[in-house]
């Protein structure tokens, strides 16, 4: 057993868990945050993507103990003060989701992608970067559109702030 303390969406969460507990199980069961999903057992589908210390990580690929002391942001922590994050807003605006199951992972992966590429994101890069996230409903068309729109909107906001 290991006692693990992780800051999740700004709140410290401690639990004593089996050593083999995955970060995703810690988030879903110990922190009660069920927005992060499990869609496969082989780290392929990306439904479980969260941010660990600012970087997108598949939370089924990391032990909870490895995240001890880390800052984790999940889909529940993305919107601030009731205001949707621009990527969340873009998924809604461009119909980038249907059943919603892959959506949290998609949004977290997309946010990380935009953080890394900014306004340079083009369609080909978005499609290549989404290789680790599987969606069965949307055919990716509107997800790609949503990410591009969010990247452009966030670049615009950043520029305006400068």
């Amino acid at each position, binding site marked *: 057993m290991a006692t693990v303390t992780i800051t999740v969406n700004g709140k410290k969460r401690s639990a004593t868990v*089996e050593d*083999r507990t995955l970060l995703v199980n810690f988030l*879903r069961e110990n922190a009660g*945050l*069920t*927005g*992060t*999903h*499990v*869609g*496969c*057992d*082989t780290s*392929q*589908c990306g*439904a479980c993507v969260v941010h660990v210390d600012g970087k997108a990580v598949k939370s089924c690929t990391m032990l909870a103990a490895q995240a001890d002391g880390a800052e984790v942001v*999940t*889909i*529940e922590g*993305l*919107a601030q003060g009731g205001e*949707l994050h621009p990527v*969340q807003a873009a*998924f*809604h*605006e461009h*119909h980038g*989701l*249907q*059943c*919603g*199951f*892959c*959506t*949290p992972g998609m*949004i977290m992966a997309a946010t990380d992608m935009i953080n890394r590429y900014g306004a340079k994101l083009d*369609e*080909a890069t*978005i*499609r*290549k970067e*989404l*290789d680790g*996230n*599987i*969606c*069965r*409903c*949307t*055919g*990716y*068309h*509107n*997800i*790609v559109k949503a990410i591009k729109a969010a990247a452009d909107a966030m670049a615009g906001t950043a520029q305006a702030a400068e």
Partner: protein
Amino acid sequence: MGVDGIGARVKRKEDRRFITGKGRYTDDMTAPGMGFAAFVRSPHAHAKVKSIDASAALDMPGVEAVLTGEQLVGDGVGNLICGWMIHSKDGTPMKMGAWRALEPEIVRHVGQAVAVVVADTLAQARDAAEAVVVDYEELPAVVDAVAALEPGAPQIHPEAENNLIYDWEIGDEAAVNAAFDSAKHVTSMEISNNRLVPNAMEPRAALADYDEAEEHYTLWTTSQNPHVARLVLSAFYNIAPEHKLRVIAPDVGGGFGSKIYVYPEEMVCLWASKRTGRPVKWVADRTEAFLTDAHGRDHKSHAEIALDENNRITALRVKTVANLGAYMSLFSSSVPTYLYATLLSGQYDIPAIHCNVKTVYTNTTPVDAYRGAGRPEATFLVERIMETTAREIGMDPAEFRRKNFITEFPHQTPVIMCYDSGDYNASLDAAMKAADYANFGARKAEAASRGKLRGIGMSCYIEACGIAPSQAVGSLGAGVGLWESAEVRVNPVGTIEVLTGSHSHGQGHETTFAQLVADRFGVGTDTVQIVHGDTDKVQFGMGTYGSRSGAVGMSAVVKALDKVEAKAKKLAAHLMEASEGDIVVEGGEFKVAGTDKSTPFFQLALAAYTAHNMPEGMEPGLKEGAFYDPTNFTFPAGTYICEVEVDPDTGKTEIVSFVAADDFGKIINPMIVEGQVHGGLTQGIGQALLENAAYDESGQLITASYMDYCMPRADDVPSFNLMTTETICPGNPLGMKGCGEAGAIGSPPAVINAITDAIGNNELEMPATPERVWRALQAAQPAQAAE
């Protein structure tokens, strides 16, 4: 139309919970004292279960129980059933082998459950399941349907001699043979339709809770049709009478057909909850999903088409062997028969069609409906042989199709269906224009200058949706009626709840169904709540599959709205002392035409509930229900054109353009419809290029994870160019045809026609992997390959 009415691109009401992580799926549910189930599954495709030793497992920490098939059968839990009776051509009924939720005697596919462990934690349950010792005696297995029919093949069920489930036919064989005897040209080909795994992103799951004091069960589960699940669990599996069983399908993460059926695991959780006296939860891991979710397709066909001297089709003759796997899943028998052979006329005027279908048991996962269900198999066959025939006779494939199009409606085909409406030239024209078909030659030459082989292929698909007129399907063997129900409840404050038997698992019903109400009363969709997926809330419903939520589910809502409107108008006329015929509904108000008198919607609702001043004999309240039974199937149709570039060095195919022109009849929300088409197209492209459920000879599924089964990823597909043409469906009040499956039905032949055009070899099976394409290319150009 208001801003939220029919035809508007209303953004989805349900999105907020999904994009903020507040969706509530079955695995998100918990119950006090909940235990976790883990199944003990057969590693063999075919084996006798000699003994099960659970003693070590029972001693492990946290283990509550290990339950086996013997106990299940002893408790009187019924066998799983197939709900659609098909008779062979000799009149004998289909041969249904016994399927138990936990198998006590003979396992028939890898992954079949023989026992279940219930423990305090999931990890404990899984550890203990590993420790259950099952002694198997292996039996010879067969995985290929054609091989399973051969003499001497392993016998899977004692009920089915030679593994044949039924030998069925449709159409006039004598007329077809006569047409072939006098044909000017005959094209014949072998056509395979590869086996697929549906792969909804949310794995199947169940949380079952038995309340001993009330003798009542609650089941939260991943279902496309919770009422049908309750009916089957109650009437056939003896779990509990319907009034003692509540089935809730909360947010469901995709279905594509795979969540229509009641599977062993959900049943076992209910039974185990009673046995252990605690709630029991099970969530499939992805490999369990691959091994136990009903698969799709898996046909092998021989097809022949006959032409007269004017290149008009005179007959089509098809022989198909369909693999149904180890057991007959809930609707499996209908898929390769009435959902398949009835669509073999395609968009074409074919005077005579005959189809013979043999369905076969094999030692593989059961096969049932997967997005399109029978219609993709029919469309692939028809559109491949149309393309091949055009190439053989040296005619442009578009012109050959056009020459044979059905142009007058209604059109009775020789295989049951009566097409009610359509304009196949319109969708072909629209697609050809958008694809710039005329200038393909220049693009091909330009690609050649870069060393790429460019090809173009089309598919003119038709499908049958709006499933289905109850009397018609009853006469064809269905065990249920396929109507839908709805209830519209106007609350005293004027907000509106619509209860529907349709189920949304991604389709956006909370938005589109609300648009019907907004359109009718001129209120905002924000005042409308759609309620679905709970047998305690919605009276009854047949659920969502076969692109039926619009054409059937919404039609029931329309009928209920008609009743609400009629009563409301009568009340409004009474309150405003006007004639009922003068009342109009506009912008959320009831108005007396030609006057300035009006009553806001909420005031009228309140008046109906205070009931202080009602017309003589009118009951208080404003709530109406309706059942809608369709009068015919609906017939969405369209043309898809795919353009590819093949790299001759690697055989890799890139889809450089994909145009889809669909006729879905009336469209409620174009944004939602486009999303449905994008998803369908990608599943169809997945079938054509990437996906294949592959078994080795011993019956091991060698593609049982995302490491091995190639799901379409974002960089495997292009952005799509979509358009719609519209002919109104005359069969339902909204004129809708359905859009959920078209993409998956129409796209595979377009892709394969494009690749075979590019490489100059028509012999190419799905999935057209780089290896297969490269080999086909070498076969087509032996001289070039030798250089």
